[in-house]
C-alpha cells in the first residue's frame, strides 16, 4: 500500500527500448545542429498574424502575410472530427442491450463484477458477490 499513485520511471527492462529514443534524439540533434537554415525571414512587425490565419482558413486574401487557402482542409477536418466523435461513442457503447449503465459509472470504467481480481478488493472484501468499488 506504499506504492505511490503517480507514475514513476521504472528502468531495468525498459531501459533498452528507451535507449532507442535517446539514440533517435542524438541523431536528430546532430542533423539539426549540423544544418544551415539561414536567417529567419520573420513576420513584419505590424502584420496581423491572427487575422491572417483566420483569412487563410476561408481562402480569403485580405491578410498581410502570404498563405495558402485551407477551406477544403477546414471542411474535411470538420467532417473527420464529427466522424471521430461518432466513432468514439460507438466504441464506448456496450455491445448488446443498451440499458447497461455500468460504463457510465465514475469508477474509471471498471465493471463491478470484475473487481474481485483487484488487490484492494482482495484485502477489504473476500466475498465475491458483494459489489466492490466505491461502496
Amino acid at each position, binding site marked *: 500500500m506504499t506504492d505511490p499513485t503517480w507514475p514513476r520511471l521504472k528502468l531495468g527492462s525498459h531501459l533498452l527500448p528507451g535507449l532507442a529514443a535517446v539514440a533517435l534524439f542524438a541523431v536528430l540533434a546532430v542533423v539539426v545542429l549540423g544544418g544551415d537554415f539561414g536567417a529567419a525571414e520573420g513576420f513584419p512587425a505590424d502584420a496581423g498574424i491572427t487575422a491572417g490565419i483566420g483569412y487563410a482558413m476561408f481562402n480569403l486574401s485580405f491578410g498581410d502575410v502570404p498563405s495558402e487557402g485551407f477551406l477544403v482542409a477546414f471542411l474535411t477536418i470538420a467532417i473527420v472530427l464529427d466522424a471521430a466523435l461518432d466513432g*468514439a461513442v460507438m*466504441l464506448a457503447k456496450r455491445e448488446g442491450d443498451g440499458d447497461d449503465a455500468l460504463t457510465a459509472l465514475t469508477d474509471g470504467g471498471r465493471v463491478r463484477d470484475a473487481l474481485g481480481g483487484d488487490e484492494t478488493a482482495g484485502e477489504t472484501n473476500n466475498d465475491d458477490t458483494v459489489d466492490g468499488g466505491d461502496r
Partner: protein
Amino acid sequence: MAVPVQWYLLLSAAMFCIGVFGVLTRRNALLFLMSVELMLNAANINLVAFARLWGNLTGQVFSLFTMALAAAEVAVGIGIILVLYRNFSDVDVTRATTMRW
C-alpha cells in the same frame, strides 16, 4: 534578437523523443495516448518554427489542423482503450496480443 531556428527544431526533436520514450517504455494505454500527444505537438512546434523561417502563415494554420486531428485521434483512442479494457480487464497494451500469428 531572434532565436535561430535550430533551437526550435532541437526543442521539437527533444519533445518528439520524449514522446517516443514514453511509447517505448510505458505499458499503460492512457500514457501511450499522452506520449502520442507529445509527439504531435513536437510536430506543431516544427510547423510554427518553419512558418516563421519562411515568413509564411501556412505552417501556423496547419498546426491548428494538427490540433484538431489530435483531438479526433484522442477521441477514437479513448474509445479503443475502453474496448480494450472491456475485453482484457486491463489497459496494459502488452496483454492485447490475441491477433498475432
